[in-house]
């Protein structure tokens, strides 16, 4: 077995919201340039896991984190420039969020927040990101119209374009297909397959089939615990290590 570069190392992560323990000690690694799918029923801690990685968990009142999350071998909680850390990580959440700005400004928001003012550079970033998100052809003639006026599926791709605009090394998607029609979902999945060579992708999904289609490995979370993480061949085989995993992916519960 060849050794793989570890992009993210999570060890014994615990997260509380007030007195509710949302994550109860999870340890897992995310390999460089893989798609790791995270599946599990509601309340299993999937979204919390993502928020702990880019430290937006800190915006949630009464949240408390224990354990370590390492990105590229440094502990995210030792990071002095948390904004730079967040730019290393692209985040896409379930509901598409077009910011109340023009399409152009939506995508240029992150580079501008990082201090980029050069118009031609911004133009280039906007075009590249929108192309990567498979949205460029639909909006290239109306970059100045409002991002919030796009359709739901377009807004979700706009959200992805924004997440790609700061050139992330890691892309986290949290159930991106919930508010999106099946055709758009397939287009975005194609986008992800392309991006796999350039970045590490964590794909939180409710759709077991999506995990099977896209991921190299899949982690199954249940009730804040990591039940099992393994390659897709094992997870979706007839004999994953844990009976619970088998029941979940075959649909006999959850």
């Amino acid at each position, binding site marked *: 077995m060849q050794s793989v570069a570890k992009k993210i190392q999570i060890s014994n992560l615990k997260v509380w919201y007030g007195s509710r323990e949302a994550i109860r000690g999870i340890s897992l690694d995310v390999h460089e340039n893989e798609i790791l799918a995270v599946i599990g029923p509601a309340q299993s801690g999937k979204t919390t896991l993502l928020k702990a990685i880019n430290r*937006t968990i800190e915006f949630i009142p009464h949240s408390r984190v224990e354990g370590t999350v390492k990105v590229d071998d440094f502990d995210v909680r030792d990071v002095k420039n948390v904004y*730079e850390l*967040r*730019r290393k990580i692209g985040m896409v959440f379930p509901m598409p*969020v077009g910011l*109340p700005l023009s399409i152009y400004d939506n995508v240029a928001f992150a580079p501008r*927040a990082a201090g980029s003012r050069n118009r031609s550079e911004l133009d280039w970033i906007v075009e590249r990101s929108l192309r990567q998100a498979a949205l460029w052809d639909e909006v290239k003639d109306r970059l100045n119209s409002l991002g919030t006026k796009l359709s739901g599926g377009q807004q979700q791709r706009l959200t992805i374009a*924004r997440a790609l605009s700061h050139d992330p090394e890691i892309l986290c998607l949290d159930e991106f297909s919930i508010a999106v029609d099946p055709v758009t979902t397939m287009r975005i999945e194609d986008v992800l397959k392309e991006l796999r060579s350039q970045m590490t992708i964590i794909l939180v999904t409710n759709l077991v089939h999506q995990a099977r289609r896209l991921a190299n490995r899949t982690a199954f979370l249940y009730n804040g615990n990591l039940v099992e993480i393994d390659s897709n061949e094992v997870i979706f085989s007839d004999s994953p290590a844990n009976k619970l995993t088998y029941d979940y992916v075959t649909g006999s519960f959850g």
Partner: protein
Amino acid sequence: MEATNQEALHDSEKLFVETPFVRRKMRTEWVARSVFLLMALLMICPLIFIVCYLFYKALPVLSLDFLLANPARGMREGGIWAPLIGTIYLVIISLLVSAPIGVFAAVYLNEYARDNWLTRFINLAVVNLAGIPSIVHALFGLGAFVLFAKMGRSVIAASLTLAVMTLPVIIAATKESLSAVPMAFREACWNVGATRWQTIRHIVLPNSVGGILTGIILQVSRAAGETAPIMFTGAVFYKAIAAGDILPYGLFDQCMALSMHLFTISTQVPDVPEALPYGIAVVLLGTVLVVNAVSIVLRTALRSRKKW
């Protein structure tokens, strides 16, 4: 097949039969509608009556001269320039103080403050302060600004008292407009590495400015109309200034004010012609109506370009 058809027939027949139950429902509907209409009329009629009555009574004095001339012959003649300009002074200075403090405080409370007992206490205090009677603000202003800060009874003391009075309402209105901006927008900004301030500056404030301005403007009419807070702190019965002078008062001068003027000539001065106080009332009312109209226009204008 037969049975289904019969049932369908039966159902469609129901459409044309008025059962007692349906009649009762329609009667209740009619009663509810009438009661609500009656209440709406009850509210609007006195308002229209008051406005018409004031205008009718004030008609003899209403003219441009009435605005631009000073009171004369012991308030029994002349116009209202001195109190009018005094009121404008007080309103502008008080809002110059309370608007920035109120907006910034609200931004802190809504965008930065952690949810703990201190912020909860402050929020509670803001809500309660907004409900304090104006006479209490007057006494506070007298103690704090006139006596303790040794400002004396002056324009600045009266303005600060009005500022204290309007502050909690401005904070409450601003907080409400800020929290109307969806949380998802903030999260989206934070996720791409924007600071809280960048988020506030580019997303939150531009999309709540309409509500904030409306909240501030509505306080203009409140500051202009209150008598009690300025009576002890800076407004006087009479102050001689040049008619038409737009900068007659210094910060530490005393001044006249419309609400106070109306109060004194209606209660303290004998033999005032009837039209005079009505004229002042119309000017005060007119100011309030104009200011509120401006705020409504502003709000509709800003809402029509709402971006989500």
